[in-house]
């Protein structure tokens, strides 16, 4: 299953890309260069316009991992603008092209397996072995979705045998811009499982990463930025669900609201009610087994069915 050599015991001390690596001099006597975890908006990596950040600690709270950007209302706004701007190009690309780009992302993910595994292990508090497995699943999940780009319409579309001299067919089209609250505990596999279905059909998204373990999301952003994915197709925010999600839920230029990762039922209800203002399609909170076969439910949730009629005659 794993072709890469076993990574070091992921404990953050090896200077190997683990978050907050190189707190001390490594074995080779070299101080590691740490990464700044920033937002990903419109293909760029800005800090929060608010200048704020928040401390990300290991799952057990024992270790400081990094400071993540604490996204603000305006960051959310900018992300929606970027997602909207990217929509026409991305939805207008051929399905083959989207599939190619998504597959390219999987290739890039594969190349960063170690880094992801380290971040997942640290952030989710799972064993290195379990983290590696989750990363593998995430890469495979991405590959699975990538392949759907030029197949979903063949499965979901139809030609409709209407009772009259008309050719009538239905095709799937992306709903538009989705705002997604990523699963709070599955920081990479869960994230990938909500982002990929949102974009494979041509939609664009703003995703709010798992609040307490956002680091894999930022690393995913780095993968996306180097994978030919047009800027703005995926925009990743880190921050607090309670602060940012309401702005996304009430945003008039967001078409789909995925509340997947909203743990608090009262907040979820509030967000769903806010989404009613412009009749967003809403996916309610869900905490499925992310390792299981995801089915087509999520993929379909980001698509519209368009039916076209034309007379048949000479």
């Amino acid at each position, binding site marked *: 299953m794993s072709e890469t050599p076993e990574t070091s015991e992921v404990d953050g001390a090896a200077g190997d890309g683990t978050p907050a690596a190189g707190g001390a001099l490594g074995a080779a006597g070299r101080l590691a260069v740490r990464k700044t975890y920033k937002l990903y908006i419109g293909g760029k990596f800005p800090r929060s316009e608010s200048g704020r950040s928040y401390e990300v600690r290991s799952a057990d709270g024992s270790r400081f991992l990094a400071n993540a950007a604490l996204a603000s209302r305006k960051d959310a706004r900018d992300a929606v603008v970027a997602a909207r701007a990217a929509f026409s190009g991305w939805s207008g690309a051929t399905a083959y092209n989207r599939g190619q780009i998504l597959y390219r992302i999987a290739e890039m993910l594969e190349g960063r397996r170690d880094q992801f595994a380290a971040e997942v292990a640290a952030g989710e508090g799972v064993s290195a072995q379990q983290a590696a497995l989750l990363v593998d699943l995430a890469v495979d999940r991405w590959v699975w979705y990538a392949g759907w780009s030029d197949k979903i319409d063949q499965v979901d579309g139809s030609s409709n045998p209407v009772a009259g*001299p008309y050719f009538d067919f239905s095709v799937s089209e992306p709903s538009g811009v989705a705002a997604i609250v990523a699963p709070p505990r599955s920081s990479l596999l869960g994230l990938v499982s909500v982002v990929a279905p949102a974009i494979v059909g041509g939609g664009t998204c703003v995703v709010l990463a798992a609040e307490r373990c956002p680091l894999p999301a930022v690393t995913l952003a780095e993968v996306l930025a180097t994978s030919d994915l047009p800027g703005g197709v995926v925009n990743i925010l880190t921050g607090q669900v309670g602060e940012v999600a309401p702005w996304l839920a009430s945003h008039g230029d967001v078409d789909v609201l995925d509340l997947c990762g909203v743990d608090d039922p009262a907040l979820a209800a509030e967000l769903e009610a806010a989404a009613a203002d412009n009749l967003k399609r809403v996916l309610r909170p869900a905490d499925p087994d992310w390792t299981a076969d995801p089915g087509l439910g999520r993929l379909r949730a980001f698509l519209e069915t368009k039916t076209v009629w034309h*007379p*048949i*005659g*000479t």
Partner: protein
Amino acid sequence: MALTAPPLADVTASADTLRRFLRGLPPVDQVGAEARAAALATRSIKTTAKAFALDLAVRMVDLTTLEGQDTPGKVRALCAKARRPDPMDPSCPAVAAVCVYGDLVPVAVEALRGSGVRVAAVATAFPSGRAPREVKLAEVRDAVAAGADEIDMVIDRGAFLAGRYLDVHDEVAAVREACGHAHLKVILETGELATYDNVRRASWLAMLGGADFIKTSTGKVTPASTLPVALVMLEAARDFRAAGGRQVGVKVAGGIRSAKDAIRYLVVVNETVGDDWLTPDWFRFGASSLLNDLLMQRRKLATGHYADPDEFTID
């Protein structure tokens, strides 16, 4: 009405201008045209409206016999019927015309003298139109000289389908000239033109060439007249007049056998071109058996019960 066409006079300046003009006419969507005709066919024409329509239809009939076995006797019988379609009912109007082959025009002229019923003759190598132009023109001149009031010519469908539109036009114009005082009806034979786009183009061609009437069919080809074909031709006549042309009549012929069918055509006329065309001067039915069904329906309306077919003369 604004029509994005060049002035009609220039249209036939050359084969090119004519072709461009015809191709520039708005296309006809088959399904839409047929749906419109089908919707009009659901109109319910009852009581006074039906009485009006039946009488009007009788007055619009070109009572026709176009058979190899036609004889003077047959034509005289038909003419008698044309003058007094229902001998038992003096209120029944005469038909518009009797339509025969050219050689029988003298018989019909004689039989209809003083009746006001006109004599129409088919000409130009009816029904195929396959003869040298001089032969066709001679046929027309002969029928007119014999006293025909109306000439029903056929267009050269071969030329039309080959794209030689100017030839078709010129032939219509030549026949128009040969007709002299006689009215010219131009048969498009829509069943051979196959598409509504062709029907519209052929209608314009005939009207540009000088047709007084455009007519659907010879009756010798299936399909003959249909409601949507009539609709498209009426629209063409309407548009031609609106574009600065003359008012041109429309004649539907072939396969119209029942009063119900005839009334449907009148509804299409009424709701497509309106009152201006609702007279025998501007709309005709080419038919034979239709007349008796019109008469039976008249009788039913008058008496309230269904009649015995043998109460009406067979010719």
